[in-house]
């Protein structure tokens, strides 16, 4: 398996600053917006985006974390199962503009699960999707509002996002495996 670095630490920082500006532009300011990161690596990305906008706009922006395990469409199939983690959205999302954040946007199934999970918590004014990497191969009619980088991939490649809060390093790498079907992101 070969690994190729696509983004380094400062690339990721620049991408996040750009997305933050796009979010503020799109929402005409930062009032009434909230971030919800999808576990695991969407959470630190959401926190970083919120911090950038907080500094830019001088407003407090709530950040929550969402575990989508219980909403996946493959739980009771006889394949694999994930360890359930805690969802922590300590604010009311109703009537807020919620920016959902994930690291890699792939089949769209995680986002489908996240939308269901989010809607169980309240009725946001809008839900917008921000992703660091869009690698294509959608299986559902879902699109992202804010994309860090589009990276066309083959299905036998794996995109791995490392964030310092979880992995002690910031980088995005592509890994090529010979044959074999990848897991759904």
């Amino acid at each position, binding site marked *: 398996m070969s690994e190729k670095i696509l983004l380094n630490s400062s690339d990721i920082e620049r991408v996040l600053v750009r997305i933050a500006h796009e979010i503020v532009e799109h929402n005409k300011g930062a009032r009434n917006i909230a971030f919800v990161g999808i576990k695991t690596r969407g959470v630190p990305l959401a926190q970083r985006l919120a911090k950038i906008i907080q500094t830019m706009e001088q407003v407090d922006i709530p950040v929550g974390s969402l575990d989508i395990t219980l909403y996946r469409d493959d739980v009771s199939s006889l394949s694999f199962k994930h*360890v359930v983690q805690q969802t922590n959205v300590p604010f009311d999302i109703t009537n807020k503009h919620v920016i959902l954040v994930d690291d890699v946007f792939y089949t769209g199934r995680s986002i489908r699960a996240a939308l269901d999970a989010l809607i169980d918590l309240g009725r946001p004014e809008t839900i917008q999707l921000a992703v660091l990497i869009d690698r294509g191969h959608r299986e559902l009619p879902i699109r992202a509002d804010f994309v860090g980088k589009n990276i066309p991939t083959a299905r036998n490649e794996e995109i791995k996002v490392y964030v310092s809060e979880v992995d002690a390093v910031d980088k995005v790498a592509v890994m090529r495996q010979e044959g074999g079907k990848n897991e759904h992101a």
Partner: protein
Amino acid sequence: MSMHETKSWPAGQGTMLPASMESWNHKHILDLDDFSREEIDLVFEIADGMVEILARDVKKVPTLRGKTIATMFFEPSTRTRASFELAAKYLGADTVSLDAAKSSVAKGESLIDSLRTLQALQVDTIIIRHPCSGAPYLAAKHLETKIINAGDGCHAHPSQGLLDIYTMRKQLGDLSGRKLVIIGDIMHSRVARSNLWGTRNFDIKVILCAPPALIPYGLKQWTENCGLHHVSIEHDLDTAIEGADIVMPLRLQKERQQSGLISSMREYIRLYQVNDARLSRAKPGAIIMHPGPMNEGIEINHDVAYGKRSLIEQQVTNGVAIRMALLYLIAGGKIR
């Protein structure tokens, strides 16, 4: 044959599974004797996620949508049955509840035939409580459907054992070096037995405290044979409770006392009731737990049961989260 011989402590297997998260492959949940520490930690980790769902306005996730879970209880129960049924419903499963007294069992149908009928009705999981020790094992042997033991005779009550340890962990953090005192009707207590198995990998000391007649014959030998070296027996409550971190009185099972195992209720209350005076001998910050239902004024007095150290209501809430975790884990698929 003396009574003690007829009610000897049931033998356990005590098999240890390889300790890793990938090793979770319990099809059924029958007792905690085959649970590794890693598996228990996994159940607890998932239960933490479930606790958050219980705190929501809308307590429902779609995880087990389309699955059917049946409860079949051959003994009365309030909390365990309601707890399992709500756990299933919160996870989106459909539930069907069979009351043995009102079912075909009353017409003479055998246990296995009743369960086979449920299986033929395409039920995915059967949660069974039965007065005979081993009944869920029999069911697991003869059926393809997944079985959860919700209490079998004096033998085991695994979900209660897990929720007890989970509650201790949440309140006390690390359990290393802690002292748990279980008081009362050890003889008839499946809760005590599942707690012994469950705590064996937690570096915790367990003291069983009861009058000699309520300690099963051969218990000491049994704990040694099973490798339960953290368990000891003490007949005097004032001694047992000294420096305890967790105090767990058990319900005096009045329906099982006809045989005169205790000389009088008044004497039992005088020697074994957990009250404020006795509790003052435990560690400051010691917690009170009770598997319920309580006989207030017998094994526990009102002030202790509803005092600030009592976690009895938290146990009930945590019980739902633990049962949700168990239903999730046995729903099929390996943990990634």
